[in-house]
């Protein structure tokens, strides 16, 4: 087993990308994710890669489109306002079937908001964000180790499905330092026969999201839809804590799930049968585990660092079968486990 080293979340994400063959990074500075581009500005030249600071997030995402269309493993990272600017390009990449990895280290909003970690971009990430009927595969790590593993895997998934993959983190994950085990360098990459490149003796390749004929575009939409369903079938990931006999289930992803876990421990100490269900892929959302545990559950509590977005997916997963409550702190304020415990006790007391 490889040795564990202490790394900051953002730097670990950057290193994991390199370990899985990412050799191109295009981005624009924004807090709280600057350590990703800064790390890569140093590291990519060491491995023969290219780091380029773009003039804007808009330019950065189209550089990503160009490099991805050219067959490279490529990544960009940003935080909420910058991710908004990238949405048009993300839509073009979904349409042109260009794989890439996009890291969103969320911060408080709307507008310029604040630089502290928050979770207000769940809808943007899981509902498309840009225009057009597309989906992103969205993975939400809760620890630095998981950020490493998921970022590494994101490149394989992006290539496998020819679709952008988003790593949805927040300021806490990016800034925290934890011991991690880094994966071995992967030197094997899939062949991309569709990419633009020097071309001898093959028909020309066109990478485009433009389909001017409606019947053709309808077929493309159907084909993409089929692929999204494949992703739904294959790529659902989730984790749990003390869920087996839980009557009160906190649903939380990313950093919020760490707080939820602490609250579950405290609740158990007080005799409350609490548990945690943590979606790791937020698109596709893990629906089945909700249905599996439904008989034993009295209520769900969605813990999010926003006013309630993921809660929609919880409701979609269980319908009206059980009450679904919400607790969250906003704008970059981090909820304390004590607050969450307080909310849990309220639910128990009121028999909700």
């Amino acid at each position, binding site marked *: 087993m490889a040795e564990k080293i202490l790394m900051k979340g953002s730097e670990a994400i950057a290193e994991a990308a390199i370990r899985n063959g990412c050799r191109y990074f295009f981005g624009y500075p924004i807090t709280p994710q600057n350590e990703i581009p800064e790390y890569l500005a140093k590291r990519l030249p060491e491995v023969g890669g290219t780091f380029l600071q773009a003039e804007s997030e808009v330019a950065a995402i189209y*550089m990503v489109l160009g*490099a991805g269309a050219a067959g490279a493993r490529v990544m960009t990272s940003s935080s909420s306002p910058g991710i908004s600017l990238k949405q048009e390009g993300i839509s073009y990449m979904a349409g042109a079937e260009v794989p890439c990895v996009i890291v969103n280290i969320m911060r408080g909003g709307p507008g310029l908001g604040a630089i502290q970690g928050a979770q207000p971009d769940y809808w943007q990430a899981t509902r498309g964000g840009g225009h057009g009927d597309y989906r992103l595969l969205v993975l939400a790590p809760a620890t630095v180790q998981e950020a490493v593993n998921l970022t590494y895997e994101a490149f394989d998934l992006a290539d496998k499905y020819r679709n952008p993959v988003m790593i949805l983190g927040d300021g806490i994950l990016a800034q925290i330092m934890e011991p991690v085990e880094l994966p071995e360098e992967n030197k094997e990459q899939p062949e991309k026969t569709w990419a633009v490149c020097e071309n001898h003796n093959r028909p020309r390749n066109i990478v485009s999201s433009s389909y001017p004929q409606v019947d053709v575009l309808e077929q493309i939409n159907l084909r993409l839809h089929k692929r999204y369903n494949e992703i739904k079938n294959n790529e659902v990931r989730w984790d749990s804590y003390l869920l087996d006999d839980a009557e009160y289930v906190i649903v939380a992803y990313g950093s919020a799930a760490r707080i939820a876990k602490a609250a579950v421990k405290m609740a158990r100490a007080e005799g409350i049968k609490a548990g945690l269900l943590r979606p790791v892929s937020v698109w596709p959302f893990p629906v089945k585990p909700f249905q599996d545990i439904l008989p034993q559950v009295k209520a769900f509590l969605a813990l999010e660092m926003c006013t309630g977005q993921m809660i929609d997916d919880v409701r979609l997963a269980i319908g009206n079968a059980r009450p679904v409550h919400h607790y969250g702190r906003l704008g970059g304020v981090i909820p304390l486990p004590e607050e969450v415990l307080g909310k849990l006790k309220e639910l128990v007391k009121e028999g909700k």
Partner: protein
Amino acid sequence: MNKIFSYPEALVDVPMHYCPGCTHGIIHRLVAEVIDEMGVMSKTIGVASVGCSCFNYDYFNFDMVATAHGRAPATATGVKRVHPNCLVFTYQGDGDLAAIGTAEIIHAAVRGEKISVIFVNNGIYGMTGGQMAPTTLPEMKATTSPYGRNTALTGYPIKMTEMLALQDGCVYAERTKISSVASINKTKKAIRKAFELQMAGKGFSVVEILSTCPTNWGIEPVEAIKWMENNLEAYYPVGVIKAPKEVE
């Protein structure tokens, strides 16, 4: 018997969608001929932008990426960084390059990005039906300047190629026109220079080509060429704006 004239290999032999008298088709052919003559078709990658030329990936017989309105220089940057030995060019209209894509084109020049830009300036938004562009001339009528472009309200036409030439990373900038055999030949030479400088690794190159849009100008093709020379060219003088010593 020696063949002395043929359809360019770098162009697919299909009918183009352009209006009668539109100069886009001629410019496509020039780009294709230069690529043939340089023998670089197998390592050419084009980037299509958004405008009337947005389907040019159907016409060029080499790898193409189609990108969003204004973003071709950024897209070409990504392509070129991955394939530095390829000939990478963008093909952009004036609305695409001089309005929505201003930041991307300037910064590609600033970086000395080793790409070439074919900039087709017809002083109007052709594809969307003839709206005013930043390049539209003072007093010129467009669907969104129905009384003629009012400079007090909308400012003055933008001289992009001069602005690009000011950047140290830009090694070659020339403005040409499509109006006669002579000017067409000049345009072809300019495209060749731009491509050659790119392949020599010198930096960013741009050829602005004054063109016609008879449909949205509302004049007959032959008249349109005269109008272009008398009006567009009067504002946007043709000639070499910047070139390395060895080329001048």
